[in-house]
């Protein structure tokens, strides 16, 4: 070997050594395994086994051959892989099955009960159960006998009966022995409402501003047209309240804050403040007049809207009158063609993806959560990429490799293992309270004591997650930099390039695919992280999106919604866990798809870079 090339080739040599090590490790376990098994058949391990090895000549005994080739270990290794794959596949199938089927409209069953009453609902699931002794005692002898023949087990079904406002529950268990018959009447409607969840029952009549249409003469087409008109009215009212009135309020608030800033800066009796106050008065008056006008318009619309009502009745005849515009969607569940079902399925998906949540997040959409998750992940990537890459560049390229650098490296690796909630606490304490508090007192004194940046928000959540994922990026970047061949660096240096030029033109572009891989990992981790976010800015319901049409358009101080937290909130914090369960699956599916899409995009970008740098030799 040439002396000159010795130290520079160190890297390649190392990798060769690693390879041979791997190559060798395949063998020893075989022997160990064989030794243990033989040790069992004989008396002890150790020297006895060694002599056993010498005693049995390879090739003579087929059993020995079998062990020597490491067959059982091969099966063990393969088995581990299979278990891992099965778990992943099982998980994906579970999420896909439940998530994709949730929105498909289910038929409504009308169940006649032994007691003479009726119930109606969608069959949710069924199970075997053991009725309690007091329940059994009240049952007729014949049913009791049947249950005892079945090892004391009975079968029951869970129906989603809806009509929460009438029954105070959404779901009802009905034992099979209580059911005398089920039918699927075509006149039963599934009515999704803005409040109180679904209504399951029949349409009694429609009151269209005084013109009453009976449920019997009502055609489905007319119902849908009138409903579409009602939805449009609701949209108009909402647009006035949410956009126009909110805009006026925003303007007013801004004016007031400006005024207060001047007051804080110059004092309450200063000429500047008095002048500003005088200037603001006419503007404030116009705005307030506009507010009043809009409120009146909205009230008028609401009054008109209230005249369009729909009277519903449940299977037992209990009636309920609601505004037509409070209905989100209604359809005769037992009278749908397959195509209509598909239409409802997609319209529900669209609602889920594009609308705000309702009913404590258990219904409606998750648009703000999708938006918040995306915003936060991108901001995080923006923050983590330069920091991580620059830190790794210094560590790998400039720092003198020694004990100090090794120590830093160990610390960075350990940072990746710190529980994420600790980062959350740090983010709240340092970013929100210390940094945010200072920003508030310097730039936003007029808003105090209401915090602007002094509480959790999009910016602090992104930075906290950036901190959490920076070790991943540093480690990946360092590896990518180390993998750039020495010959490339030497070629560049020999051309008279400085170290920085070499890094800029040769090393960084070449390491980019590896760096991207690190960023992808960081983004995937960041997008799925929930615990620290609960402390630094994620809320159950955010009134406003972090990006809107009010200056400065991106509001980094706002709290936001996050899909991961949404899953937790819907699944474990809602009044009705049974009703929320499908939403948990759907939201999980969505979160996984989102992470998957973000990863896929980055992987495509990375592969393009790779193709550029690793085009075929020869």
């Amino acid at each position, binding site marked *: *070997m*040439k*002396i*000159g*090339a*010795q*130290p*520079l080739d160190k890297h390649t040599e190392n990798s060769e050594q690693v390879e041979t090590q791997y190559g060798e490790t395949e063998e020893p376990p075989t022997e160990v395994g064989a030794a243990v098994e033989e040790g069992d058949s004989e008396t002890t391990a150790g020297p006895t086994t060694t002599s056993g090895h010498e005693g049995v000549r390879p090739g003579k005994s087929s059993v020995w051959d079998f062990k020597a080739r490491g067959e059982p270990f091969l099966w063990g290794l393969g088995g581990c892989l299979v278990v891992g794959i099965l778990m992943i596949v099982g998980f994906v199938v579970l999420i896909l099955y439940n998530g994709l089927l949730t929105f498909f409209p289910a038929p409504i069953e009308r169940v006649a009960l032994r007691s003479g009453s009726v119930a109606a609902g969608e069959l949710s699931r069924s199970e075997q159960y053991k009725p309690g002794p007091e329940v059994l005692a009240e049952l007729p002898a014949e049913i009791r006998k049947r249950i005892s023949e079945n090892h004391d087990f009975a079968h029951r079904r869970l129906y989603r009966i809806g009509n929460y406002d009438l029954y105070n529950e959404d779901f009802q268990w009905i034992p099979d022995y209580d059911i005398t018959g089920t039918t699927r009447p075509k006149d039963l409607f599934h009515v999704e409402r803005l409040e109180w969840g679904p209504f399951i029952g029949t349409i009694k009549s429609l009151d269209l501003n005084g013109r009453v249409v009976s449920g019997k003469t009502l055609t489905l087409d007319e119902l849908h047209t009138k409903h579409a008109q009602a939805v449009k009215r609701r949209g108009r009212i909402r647009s006035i309240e949410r956009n126009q009135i909110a805009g006026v309020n925003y303007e007013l608030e801004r004016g007031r804050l400006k005024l207060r800033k001047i007051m804080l800066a110059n004092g309450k009796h200063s000429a500047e403040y008095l002048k500003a106050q005088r200037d603001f008065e006419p503007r404030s008056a116009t705005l307030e007049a506009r507010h009043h006008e809009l409120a009146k318009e909205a009230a008028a619309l609401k009054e008109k809207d209230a005249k369009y009502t729909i009277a519903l009745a449940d299977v037992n005849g209990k009636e309920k009158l609601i505004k037509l515009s409070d209905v989100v969607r209604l359809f005769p569940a037992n009278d749908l063609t397959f195509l209509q079902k598909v239409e409802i399925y997609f319209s529900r998906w669209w609602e889920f993806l594009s609308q705000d949540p309702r009913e404590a997040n258990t219904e409606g959409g998750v648009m703000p959560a999708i938006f918040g998750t995306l915003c936060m992940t991108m901001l995080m990537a923006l923050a983590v990429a330069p920091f991580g890459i620059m830190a790794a560049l210094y560590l790998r390229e400039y720092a003198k*490799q020694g004990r100090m650098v090794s120590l830093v490296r160990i610390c960075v690796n350990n940072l990746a293992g710190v529980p994420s909630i600790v980062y959350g606490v740090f983010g709240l304490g340092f970013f929100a309270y210390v940094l945010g508090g200072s920003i508030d007192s310097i730039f936003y004194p007029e808003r105090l004591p209401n915090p602007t940046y002094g509480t959790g928000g999009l910016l602090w959540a992104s930075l906290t997650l950036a901190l959490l994922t920076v070790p991943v990026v540093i480690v990946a970047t360092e590896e990518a930099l180390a993998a750039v*061949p020495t*010959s*490339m*660096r*030497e*070629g*560049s*240096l*020999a*051309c*008279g*390039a*400085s170290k920085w*030029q070499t890094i800029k*033109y*040769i090393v960084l*572009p*070449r390491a980019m695919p590896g760096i991207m891989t690190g960023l992808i990992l960081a983004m995937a981790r960041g997008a799925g992280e929930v615990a620290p976010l609960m402390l630094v800015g994620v809320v159950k319901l955010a009134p406003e999106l972090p990006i809107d049409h009010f200056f400065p358009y991106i509001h980094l101080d706002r709290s936001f919604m996050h899909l991961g937290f949404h899953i937790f909130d819907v699944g474990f914090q809602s009044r009705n866990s049974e009703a929320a369960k499908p939403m948990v699956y759907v939201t999980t599916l969505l979160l996984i798809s989102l992470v998957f899409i973000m990863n896929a995009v980055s992987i495509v970008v990375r592969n393009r870079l790779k193709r*550029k*740098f*690793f*085009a*075929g*030799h*020869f």
Partner: protein
Amino acid sequence: MSRYQDNPNETVYHTKAGPHGTLLSIEGFSLWYGASQALFDVSMTVEKGLVTALIGPSGCGKSTLLRAINRMNDLIDGLTTKGSMSLDGIDIYSPTVDVIGLRKTMGMVFQKPNPFPMSISDNVAYPLRVDGIRDKRTLEETVVKALKGSALWDEVKDRLNENALGLSGGQQQRLCIARAIAGEPDVLLMDEPCSALDPVATAKIEDLIDELKGRYTIVIVTHNMQQAARVSDNTAFMYLGKLIEYGETSRVFTNPKVEKTMEYVTGRFG
């Protein structure tokens, strides 16, 4: 009594002065990697415009010597040197010397072709780019000139903007030569430029070295004695970090003064 000189610790010189004088002179140069010494008191001169070959068995320090000329060894921690090396009167190892500027006066070609992952023309223009030259016409002219100079122009003139990694091994090495001569260096350092190439590509590179002779001063490290005999004017034989014999190629190969040299050039070891 042998016809060879007995004392192997003394270098035997039998060079004649080049027609253009001396470009590089090395005097009493020793080099250590940490504690282990790689070069022992090497003294030699490289004649301007000629091809000087460094031969010797693996580990004899010929690559180290070559890399010492443009201070590529600086990248290694714990490197120490003694003695002097001067290029046209400039002390290469003076502490005040501008290493980057020094490297710009030398082109280097490596054992394995190492084109950068960019287009062919960007590869050739790289030395100018890092010099801060942005003028398109200058760059284009240089690229054409360097590619013609390295006998690659006819093969790549239609695909200057394609990735250089798509070229064959021999083409890549000629591209690296084009890159090395693009900056108009005084010296061309070649570290076993043909060891990764097939015979046809090797022949092309050797022809190219012949063509470049005269315009550039070339120092070439090679394992291949036939190659040294074919392309070089002067040959230095090194063994275990020492310069054993240095002189006109024909003399070193046909009439060596030291027994070790004879044994090596006749293939008895190495």
